[in-house]
Each structure stands twice: as structure tokens, then as C-alpha cells.
């Protein structure tokens, strides 16, 4: 455990090193957030409720979606691709430490750094320029935190699984893009899927993506009842279990494959 904490610490320091990246990211993310806010304002012009949600909640949704997107940044797929490409994966695996544990610790470290560098500024700018993103019902806060934690894990495991394809495909730039688009459009991060036709909603409800963005955000803006949140979180938890099982299985296979190649 201590070893991994050390990795987390190193990663925080590395992430802090580039000031320009930080400001650049904040500016870009703020522009995206504000354009989204105006997008919804224009759509809601002269309407109260569309899809059980009013304009005000939709703005909260936009701000919190930007905040959540910072938390859901993963680097693991690029890391695996690079280490396979450069062949460092063999030496990495010889170290007395689980390589995927290191990647996980690195992503955690990165997010801890981003918490102050990006998340807080985004909430601040959002509150000043759009509205204060207050939670609809503060009593649901524990549910929100748990579902965010689960969505973080699901998101990380999906990223790691895509990354592990590098062991067989070698170049996975395109696959990373596929994953990115699937996640962007099917998770409700840009447009909540409750605006989609019912049949499409049903299909998307059976995929893991909506449990990454839309479920925690729905809890936050208070769309639906507590019973609905709980049943959603149950499915979310099942996805987490299922994906973890796949992850550990694939991981053991991948490690064996590398061992064979190494002689």
C-alpha cells in the first residue's frame, strides 16, 4: 500500500509541474461549459419543463457534468499503449509491484491534483457565470457520493480494458477514440438520454455508460424518486462487479501472454 501511495504522491507533483496546461485546461473547459449552458438556455426559451426537467436543473446538470468529467479523466489506456509500444512493459512487470495498481495509483494522483487545479475553479466560474450548482435534495448526498465513486471505478475499468487491447492490437489510438465517443454520447454527459426516444433509452439503459454520468447527475439534480436512484445504483453496482470480474480475468491472461513473449 505504501508503495502505491508513493506513486500517487509522485504523480501529484508531476501534474503540478506544468502551469500552462492547468490554465489552458481551465479556459477550455470553461468555454465548453458556458457554450453548453447557452445551448440549453436557447433550447428552453419559452418552455418550462422538457423531459421532466426545467431549465434551471439543466444548467446545474451542465456544470456538474463538467466537474464530473474532470474526475473521470483516465490515462491508463495511453500508459499501457506506450509501455507495450516501447517494450518497457516487460521490465515494469518484473518490479515487485502490480503494474495495474501503479496505473491506478497514477490516475488517482492525477485526479487529486486536478481537484484543486480544475474542479474547484470550474465550480467557482460556473457559480459566477451561470448559476450556483446547488444540489436538489441535500439528503441524497450520500447516494450521490457512492454513485460517483462507483462511476469512477466503472469508468477506470472500461479504460483499462480498452488499454489492454494494446497487448494484441499494438496500436489502439483508434480504439481509444471509439471508447471516447461512445462514452461522450451514450453516457448522457452532453445530452441526457431522457431526451432520446423511449426505445433508444431502453437500449442505452442496458449498457454501462449511463451509469457513469447520468445516474449520479440525476441524483444531483433530483430527477426521479429515491426508489429509482436505488434501483439504478443496484444496476450500477452489478456493472461494477461484472466489469471487475472481466478485468481481473483479462489481466491474468495478459500477464501470462507477456511472460511468454519475454521467453
Amino acid at each position: 500500500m505504501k508503495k502505491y501511495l508513493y506513486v500517487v504522491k509522485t504523480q501529484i507533483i508531476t501534474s503540478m509541474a506544468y502551469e500552462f496546461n492547468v490554465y489552458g485546461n481551465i479556459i477550455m473547459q470553461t468555454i465548453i461549459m458556458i457554450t453548453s449552458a447557452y445551448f440549453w438556455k436557447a433550447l428552453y426559451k419559452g418552455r418550462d419543463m422538457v423531459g421532466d426537467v426545467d431549465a434551471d436543473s439543466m444548467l446545474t446538470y451542465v456544470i456538474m457534468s463538467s466537474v464530473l468529467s474532470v474526475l473521470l479523466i483516465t490515462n491508463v489506456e495511453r500508459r499501457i499503449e506506450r509501455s507495450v509500444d516501447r517494450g518497457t512493459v516487460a521490465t515494469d512487470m518484473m518490479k515487485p509491484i502490480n503494474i495495474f495498481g501503479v496505473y491506478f495509483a497514477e490516475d488517482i494522483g492525477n485526479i487529486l491534483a486536478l481537484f484543486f487545479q480544475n474542479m474547484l475553479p470550474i465550480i467557482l466560474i460556473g457559480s459566477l457565470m451561470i448559476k450556483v450548482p446547488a444540489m436538489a435534495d441535500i439528503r441524497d448526498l450520500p447516494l450521490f457520493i457512492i454513485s460517483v465513486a462507483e462511476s469512477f471505478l466503472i469508468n477506470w475499468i472500461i479504460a483499462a480494458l480498452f488499454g489492454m487491447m494494446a497487448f494484441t492490437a499494438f496500436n489502439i489510438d483508434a480504439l481509444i477514440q471509439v471508447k471516447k465517443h461512445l462514452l461522450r454520447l451514450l453516457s448522457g454527459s452532453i445530452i441526457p438520454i431522457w431526451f432520446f426516444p423511449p426505445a433508444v433509452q431502453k437500449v442505452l439503459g442496458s449498457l454501462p455508460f449511463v451509469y457513469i454520468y447520468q445516474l449520479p447527475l440525476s441524483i444531483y439534480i433530483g430527477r426521479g424518486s429515491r426508489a429509482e436512484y436505488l434501483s439504478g445504483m443496484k444496476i450500477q453496482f452489478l456493472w461494477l462487479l461484472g466489469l471487475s470480474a472481466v478485468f481481473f480475468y483479462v489481466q491474468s491472461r495478459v500477464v501470462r501472454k507477456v511472460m511468454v513473449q519475454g521467453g
Partner: protein
Amino acid sequence: MKKALNEFIHYLDVTAHVIKMAFMTIIEYPANIAGWMISNPLQFIMGFAIIKFVVESFGQINGWNYGQLAFLYGLSVISHALSMIFFVQGWFMGYFVIEGEFDRYLTRPLGVLYQFFFTNINIFGVTDLIPGILVFIYGCVKCSVSVNLLFILQVLIMLVGATLIRGGIYILLGSTSFHTGSAVDFGQYTQEIMDKTTMYPLSMYPESMQFILTYLIPVGWISFYPVSSLLGIEGRYNGMMIPFVTLAVGILVMLIAGAYFNTGLKKYESAGN
């Protein structure tokens, strides 16, 4: 004059070879080809589907109906695809600066900016182009535009201009790496912002933002103004000359970007020493 012509022919010759090499590189990784073939069309099909769903929920977007939005979206995707083919390298310029990759280009007797973009030409951009063209044709049919010679000329001119504007913006953003000394991959953000500002009518944003997006960061000229004029939608700028303005803006942005790149290149130090 003859010398300039010879040089131009030489550049064309090099370009032909480079495209051939690009083809050979992409077939090296079959899984990658399959990935791009799925990834890029998927992105735009889903993006277009989302517009449809939004229009179904809300009726229209700021007065633009579904057909008009398809027309706008299609043209926006086509110019995006063209900029991906020729200028996507701008997104990764930071890494070239940090890793000292420009050394290689500086030692060769060709323009650095030319080499930077054209020795890394991105054939996969074609996979963006096809969905764009399909949506555009769909939009044309929905809006029942009359296709004549002037229309085709206007569309082609605005596409050249729009591609130059996008490319210029990528170069400007990428060139900041020379001054900051850090590699930032703004590609994803740039694309997201461009998507939001070129695939939907600009008039839905407040006046102040429209002003910025028209005069300071001229993304309005990429699709919104020319499409408004092509479809005859009332707006800030109207008339059949608008696509030509787009071309002029594109050339201007490119010139500024080239100058900024060159000042950056003067500051460029190699990786090691």
C-alpha cells in the same frame, strides 16, 4: 518565375510520395484501420442522431428546422474532415516541440510547416468525410435547395475557407508550445468547442459571444454565416458573397498562424542541448 514553378512542381512531387507513404503506414496496423472506420462515422452518426432527438423534444433549435440543421451539420463535418486530413498534426505540435522532432525538418530543404503537415498526412480523415457528405446531401434534399453551378461554387469556396480557418486555429494553438515549452493536447477540447459552435446555429448564443466568435476567433465563418446565406436565413450577414468572405477569412487566419508559427520556430531549441 521559372524557378518558382520548378519549386512548386518539386513540392507536388514530394506530396505525391508522402501520400503514398501515408497509405503504406496505415496498412501496418489492421486493427487500427478497423478502429478508425468504426470510430469516426460512429461519432457523426451519433452526433446527428442527437440533433434529431433534440429537435424532436424541442421542436426546433433557435428557429432552425431539422433540414436546415442537417445542412449546417453536414457542411461543418465536411470541413472538419478536410482539416483532419491536412492539419490534424497541429494538435500534436507540442510533442514535436518537446521531443525535438523539428530538428529533422529543419535540416531538410523544404518549408518546415509544409513538412510538418504533409509528411504526416492523415488519410483516415476520409472516414469523417463520408458521413459528412451523406448528412449534407440529406440536408440538401430536406431543404430542397436548387443545385446549380453558383451553389456548387459557393459550397466549394466556403469549404476551402472553412478548412483553412480550422487549420489556422490548430496551428495557432499548437504554436503556443514553442513559447510555453510544454506539450498540451488541446485537440479534444478544440474539437468539442468547434462542434458546439459550428454544428449549431451561432445565433443561439448571446450577442457578446457571437461578437467574439465572429471577429476574434472567426469560427462563425466556418459554417454559420455561409450556411445562413446559402439557405437564405436572415441574420447578421446575408448575400451570395459570404462564402467568399469565408475564404478571405481563412487565408487571413492561415497567414497569421504561419507568422506566429515562424516566430515560435525562431525560439525553438532542440531537445538535448
